[in-house]
């Protein structure tokens, strides 16, 4: 099983590399949306510290004191930024839902495909994926609710102990419980998408049924292992990013420029990891499903 998981993981990388243009399709809209959503901040900062020595202090360290001053000077700025961020997130969510059908389709196929084909596949599966997304919301809420209740029970149990260590453990377990619930729901719905594309299943509930059948048909631990590997890859990327960001953080213009490049590189890697998940799971699906034997032509057609 382990070798199967590893080979799927490696195959996932190969697939993402083969279809790298899809990575750009996910990255660019996020960057553009974030850029537009940050324009009011840029203008406010330009007015506040564009000609101020405070700019040097901010370049050296972003302090809560500075944020307080900024909020005081631009009273409506922070609500505006939050509203724009929420709007941007909603648009990006829909964009990704749109792109995902094409991306999954690409990752299932051996050859790179032109962008318009990716978009066209995205459009074909958009309705199904949107329904899946809507169905997933109560499932996520339920996962959070169950995790929260279990966590509360754990905290109550551990609170009987006077040890602060036990208290911390209870809270960590509670958070892990919630995260596990979210992870499970996410896994099921991601497989629903993969199977919807693979089997041209445009009914959300049908895809969901297939996903549950697939996962609980003896493949759950492989899928979970693969998910874990992808998660570990993401964590490694995050750790590397944080180390680099700590080194690059400083007020000098060259360091600021390098930090910006480093940040964007990490955002790109994040997209790669997201697609790696689909690539690897697509590979697992191919590995797990029985290969169809070529059918001999019937005698009367010979």
């Amino acid at each position, binding site marked *: 099983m382990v070798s199967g998981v590893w080979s799927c993981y490696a195959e996932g990388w190969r697939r993402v590399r083969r279809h790298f243009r899809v990575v750009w399709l996910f990255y660019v809209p996020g960057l553009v949306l974030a850029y537009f959503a940050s324009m009011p*901040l840029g203008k406010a900062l*330009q007015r506040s510290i564009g000609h*101020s020595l405070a700019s040097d202090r901010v370049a050296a360290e972003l302090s809560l004191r500075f944020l307080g001053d900024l909020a005081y000077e631009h009273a409506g700025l922070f609500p505006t930024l939050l509203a724009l961020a929420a709007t941007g*997130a909603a648009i*990006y969510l829909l964009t990704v839902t749109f792109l995902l059908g094409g991306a999954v389709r690409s990752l299932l196929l051996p050859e790179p495909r032109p962008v318009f084909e990716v978009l066209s596949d995205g459009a074909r599966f958009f309705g199904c994926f949107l329904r899946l997304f809507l169905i997933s919301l109560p499932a996520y809420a339920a996962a959070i609710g169950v995790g929260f209740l279990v966590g509360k029970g754990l905290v109550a149990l551990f609170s009987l102990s*006077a040890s602060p260590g036990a208290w911390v453990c209870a809270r960590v377990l509670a958070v892990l419980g919630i995260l596990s619930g979210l992870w499970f729901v996410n896994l099921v719905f991601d497989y629903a998408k993969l199977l919807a594309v693979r089997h041209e299943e445009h009914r959300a509930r049908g895809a969901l049924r297939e996903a549950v059948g697939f996962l609980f048909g003896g493949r759950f631990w492989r899928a979970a292992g693969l998910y874990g590997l992808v998660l570990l890859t993401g964590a490694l990327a995050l750790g590397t990013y944080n180390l680099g960001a700590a080194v690059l953080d400083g007020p000098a213009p060259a360091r600021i420029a390098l930090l910006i490049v480093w940040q964007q590189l990490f955002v790109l890697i994040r997209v790669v990891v*997201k697609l790696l998940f689909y690539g690897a799971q697509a590979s697992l699906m191919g590995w797990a499903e029985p290969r169809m034997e070529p059918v001999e032509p019937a005698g009367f057609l010979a």
Partner: protein
Amino acid sequence: MGRKRMPRVAAVFLVAGWVVCGRFAAAAVTAEPVASYVLEARLHAKEKLVHGRGQILWRNATDRTVETLQFHLYMNAFRNSESSFMRELSWRGRYRRRKPHEWGWIELDTLRWGSYDLLVNARFIHPDDDNELDRTVLEVGLPRPVGPGDSVRLNVVFRTKLPRILARTGYEGEDFFFVAQWFPKVGVLEPGGWNCHQFHRNSEFYADFGTYDVRLIVPRDAVVGATGLLMEEHALDSVRVLHYRAENVHDFAFTASPLYRVYTDSFGSAEIRVLMQKGHEAQARRHLEAAKTAMRRFGEWFGPYPYPVLTVVDTKGRAGGMEYPTLITAGVLFGPWLPRGLRTVEAVVFHEFGHQYWYGMVANNEFEEAWLDEGINSYCEVRLFEEEYGPRGNLLDVLGQRLSDLELQRMQLQLIPAPDPVLRKAWEFVDSQSYSVNSYAKVAVALTTVERLAGEERWLAFLRKYFERWRFRHPHTEDFLSLLREEIPEPAYKGFLRQVLEVPGHLDYGVERVSTHREGKPLGVDFDVAAAETDSAATPREGRSSPDTTWYRSEVLLRRYGEFQLPVEALLLFANGDTLRFSWDGAERWHRIQVRHPARLKAAVIDPEGKIPMDLNENNNSRTVEPRRRGVWKLVARWVYWLQGMFSLASFLS
């Protein structure tokens, strides 16, 4: 008893007597008792009821004769939804919708002066509003007038039903009691008459000093903390009787719960007791250390803590941080585990302990001039944090995020609308936020500003003198300001403090514009135009090519954006490293500085030493001639990155 043992026993008694008397001698500095109480109170835990009886000894310390007495019956604020307190609550649904047994009240069964029943001639009055349903102030007619210096000894019997914790008093669950404002309390007779306000949502208290001698009868398993020193304790069937005595105080509160864990320590001659909730034991040491730190610092600044004991209570439910004489409540805000860099325990203990000085000893009228204790005490809290943990990140220093107590107070001024002046009766503020920001944060930041302008030593000397002069008395705003005028006569910040107290507004100075240009040849009718045209900057005339003779004209426009006025300093920074310093009285809305200097102006900075934390926007305190964009780039790039992260998180759902 043998002869040989006698001297030893005598010595023991002598030492014990010396210790006890010494401890009280420390407390009995100067307060003149006006309202003293000898009470016996039995806590009925199941019924959430306190049965009380005893004597009130009141002395007329004014030069006027009175024919009535006024009493605070604070607990009646929780009697129903129509008390002034409940009407003023903004979280109406939450507090007003109480179960029948969760309300609180106080009933006087007996109030006698000798054989005369004062309740015959009693009525509820409402001096602050027209709420006839409010029962928090009782006025009783006296059978004969009480002249200056005369005393009355009243016998009282009362029942107090505790509410579910509200305004830091009452019960929570079946086993936690915090009992404050639980007995009939005489108002303060001032030269102008009775000062006895109704209980309001935003107000705290005001009372005369006296001696409290209280016997508490509580369930046998209850751990008790109370105002004053425990003199005696004994068990009796299912109850315990505890005898407390406190001198030079103006209130008495107690708490009882079987779940408390008790931790003790001492500082000087004072015993420190910390009562921690079960499960919060890990934070006991922090409470003790914070109390000791506060005792040490306040002792250095204003004189030693004069009482023999301090009890710190880790409260439950909504009891929150509060001060009573020798008893303060604190608590663990975020569970039993707190990172060392998050000093919320210290903040509450520092603040509430500070009230032993500002409220406990310097006992201003909290109804009418809350800033005199809350504001000065918040300033002391800021100062204590800075002295103990340094000026940066002294309140929060976790994961690279730093915030000082001063910055937190300043942020409240920046972000919370507070349209009232500081000097306003507590219940007349537009809302509790305005009361809180004005009475606490605004004064704390303003006094820190004055300290920095006046000089630390001088300011502390003034504050110490104010404390010593008004210890065990009731000062007013004018007492503070007149002493300030005497001790620190500079007109600049004296006026500033009055503005802060009387005018709603804020302080913000900034540099609006800077410009600098190389001085050219004069042009026009009186000058040789032709010569000027041929004498371009690229080909300077002989004698102007030397850097010594190249001059720049620079102009700086300073602005006052806020309402408050304060003299400020401006520093001009030049490209060759020169600096020029200017003073501005800050009175007008703007001030222009023009200079001729042999180097280009780089930047202008107002308040260059950062002496004015009251200035609510430091971003406009400097202006450079050339753009400074690195901060802008970095912050925008970081925000873009964060947004991308947020989008990515949202797409997790897709």
